[in-house]
């Protein structure tokens, strides 16, 4: 039996070790420390999955019900898997991209890492919020300090201010719940939901919806995303898309589906409609992008819209599908951003029009690119398919309009294939002839990510099996 606090203690030890190293000025390099730290955390998680977890509880201030209580709730484990595993390959890109002031960067890196773990396992809402904010802040600093241009500073500020609004509405939800149930503990609140008046439930649900729509993000409130994804350094983009956007989905499932289920069910039709609209809109916008990184940013929003549809339906099947899709999307989008990063590094451009015929020079890269694109298209056997299937099966029975979103998949087929064709196939441009393929480490990193894409695609039961008590 593994105590959950270990999952937090290990990264904290890593952080303090980096700090110590920085003060003493010698020893291991910070990226290695981060790697070891995350390796140990993953080992802890693995042994925890094998032998079970023990919840942890430490009361700090009972007046505001401020206590560090960690527990596994009904959807935690898949997300935990994602956040524990995904930053490991991201580390490679970080070590490539970040040359300045490494200790500081890895400090923030591990902060994001541990707080992402914390968000998924804390059952005290104040701690939940604390981890949530620490992750946002660390990403803000990573974005604006290590971004290359003045635009990345602006994008970072926009990201912070925009998502901060979402965080505040989430906080408002927590406080409202506290007012009526007298507790910040998720389980206590869940058991006392009957004492919350209906209009308060509606108000909280709408506030939550704002949070979710900003964080995921869903169409009308996505304005921060293109800038933030585009102008931040690639590892940060990976964090944003792979992990931070999952916070929104997680919160939506945990609170929207877990606590306000009745309201969710009452409002499911307009919400699904909104999701469908967002999906189609985003798919169309994505097909108007010429830059790979921008294209992937928008496509990432498309999958989040699908997740939104799935959760809004309030059907267990669709919600499990949403979880599956989120986990899988985390891996797929990381692979895609990795590819766009390597292309940018090797060719100096990310515009598909300026690339072309790279397969003859980079056969390995093209294999991974095709894999990622096929996964994104929802080809069975790769990870997005089970999630999409479950979402559509779940939503169809209550809101048939959700099937319109399949049209969005069609549009996304178009732009993915166009990107693939323009970048990888066709005539090789002369100036690109000297390009080198992936080196061994990169292949390993990509293989690592692809392994999970295949694993989830072939054995979705690994994840659906742990979605207990939905």
């Amino acid at each position, binding site marked *: 039996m593994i105590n959950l606090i270990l999952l937090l203690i290990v990264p904290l030890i890593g952080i303090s070790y980096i700090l110590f190293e920085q003060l003493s000025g010698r020893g291991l390099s910070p990226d290695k420390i981060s790697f070891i730290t995350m390796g140990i955390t993953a080992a802890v998680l693995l042994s925890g999955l094998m032998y079970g977890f023990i919840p942890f509880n430490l009361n700090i201030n009972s007046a505001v019900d*401020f206590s560090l209580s960690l527990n596994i709730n009904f959807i935690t484990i898949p997300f935990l898997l994602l956040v524990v595993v995904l930053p490991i390959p991201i580390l490679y890109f970080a070590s490539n991209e970040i040359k300045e*002031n490494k200790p500081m960067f890895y400090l923030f890196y591990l902060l994001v890492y541990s707080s992402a773990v914390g968000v998924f396992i804390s059952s005290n809402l104040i701690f939940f919020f604390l981890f949530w904010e620490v992750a946002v*802040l660390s990403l803000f600093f990573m974005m604006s300090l290590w971004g290359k241009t003045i635009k990345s500073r602006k994008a970072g500020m926009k990201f912070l201010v925009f998502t901060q609004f979402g965080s505040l509405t989430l906080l408002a939800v927590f406080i409202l719940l506290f007012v009526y149930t007298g507790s910040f503990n998720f389980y206590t609140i869940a058991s006392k939901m009957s004492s919350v008046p209906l209009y308060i439930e509606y108000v909280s649900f709408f506030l939550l919806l704002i949070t979710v729509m900003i964080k995921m993000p869903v169409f009308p409130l996505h304005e921060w995303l293109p800038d933030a994804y585009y102008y931040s350094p690639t590892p940060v983009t990976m964090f944003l898309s792979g992990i931070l956007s999952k916070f929104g989905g997680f919160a939506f499932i945990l609170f929207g589906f877990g606590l306000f289920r009745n309201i969710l069910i009452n409002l499911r039709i307009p919400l699904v409609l909104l999701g469908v609209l967002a999906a189609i809109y985003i798919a169309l916008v994505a097909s108007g992008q010429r830059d790979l990184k921008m294209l992937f940013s928008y496509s990432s929003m498309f999958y989040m819209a699908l997740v939104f549809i799935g959760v809004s339906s309030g059907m267990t099947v669709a919600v499990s599908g949403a979880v599956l899709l989120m986990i899988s999307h985390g891996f797929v989008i990381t692979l895609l951003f990795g590819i766009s990063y390597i292309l940018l590094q090797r060719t100096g451009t990310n515009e598909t029009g300026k690339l072309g015929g790279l397969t003859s020079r980079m056969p390995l890269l093209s294999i991974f690119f095709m894999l990622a694109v096929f996964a994104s298209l929802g080809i069975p056997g790769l990870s997005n398919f089970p999630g999409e299937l479950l979402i559509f099966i779940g939503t169809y029975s209550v809101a048939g309009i959700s099937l319109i979103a399949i049209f969005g998949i069609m549009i996304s087929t178009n732009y993915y294939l166009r990107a693939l064709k323009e970048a990888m196939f066709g005539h090789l441009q002369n100036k690109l002839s000297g390009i080198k393929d992936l080196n061994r480490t990169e292949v390993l990193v990509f293989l690592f990510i692809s392994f999970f894409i295949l694993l989830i695609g072939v054995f979705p039961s690994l994840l659906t099996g742990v979605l207990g008590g939905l």
Partner: protein
Amino acid sequence: MEYLNPQYILFSGILLVILLDFLRHSLGKSGKGFIHYLTAIILVTSFVFNAFYGTMNIHMFSETEYSQFITSFMLFISLFVYLFILADREEHSSVLDISYLSAVLGATLVVISSNFISLFLSIELLSISSYALVYMHKSSGALEGAVKYLSTGIVSMVILIFGISIIYAGAGTLSFSSLHNVSYLPFIAGISIIVAGLGFKSTLVPFHMWAPDTYEASKSSITAFISSVSKAAGLIAMIRIFFFALPVSSSFVTALFLSIAILTIFLSAFLASVQDRIKRLLAYSSISQAGFAFISLAVLTSKGAQAAIFYVFAFAIADAIVFLAYDMFESKKIIYRKDSGKMYSVSKIGAVSFFIAMLSLAGFPPTIGFFGKLLIFYALFSSGYAYIVLLLFFSLLVSTFYYFSVLADMNPLVALREIKTKHKVKMDQRLKEIILVVLTLSLFVGIIFA
């Protein structure tokens, strides 16, 4: 034992210092230093005695539930601010010691006043010594700042007196405990005018205008005192009046408070976001903090009062840290926002403390600033002012913007590159840094009081 309270000690301390100052010449060169240390010791003892025996409890001054806590955090901050001034090693005259002690005394007396007269006198004591403190900075702007402070202060005091007299006309007494049967009209008029008078001390819009100028003109360590302890006193005075004295539960008071508070919060947020000079930005941020404390009074429930007290505590500490840390930067000519990248090279620990204190002011967990805001929102929500909270979110976004543009400008990357050339860190800086560390730690430990 009842004489062993901080107020008596402070009072006797002031007398002692004045006496010693007369004898200074016979004591020689070391005498001045001795006076300074004595002042520090007086503050320490008063803090300790407050912790053990509580505050003064005589005729016009009476203890309440929270007075011990409030007094102790005021003394705590004052002590560290004074230690910081002391660590400066800059020769300061013993007049500063006297004024400082008087100001602290005034602030602590405000907390326990149970009568309008005593309240007024305490505030006057605090104000007059503050004018002196501001003036004592050796810069060209100090006089101007002090005069502005003085002139607006005088007008405000007059207004306050006027308000008090209206209340007296209605109730026939000035004692807080016997104000329950005040009639409606004088009550309304009196309250509104008292708010206007006290708004000066606690920098509420539109009585705040002296604050940025004065803050900027005075030495940053003094600003730390004015913006934390002195402002806290003003807010505590309001809490005293509206929760423990007047039988308030009227829509008028709520409307008045809400409108003033929201005006304060928004105006200061927007003005802060366009400031170039860090100190002015901090001044406006401090005004906005006062607005937050004030808004939780508006709900007129005990939850609101608790939230307000805790929030005052939270922002007072954070403000003190910010200004103290800025004192170190100011001496290295970091005035404008674009210079803030150099902060790390001046003092790493100072910059980190500044950073954390800013987080607290911006209300980010896990600092007490977050819990302060949490309690305020809780108070507002439980009285059904959800829409006000939503409105406040927008101001918080603006404040997030300006806090974080400073924090991002601090850019540790540039700074850490420069820091490679290790310069010798002076003793006084180490002392200052230790003070800041202690205060910063209290930002986290303070959570237990929530």
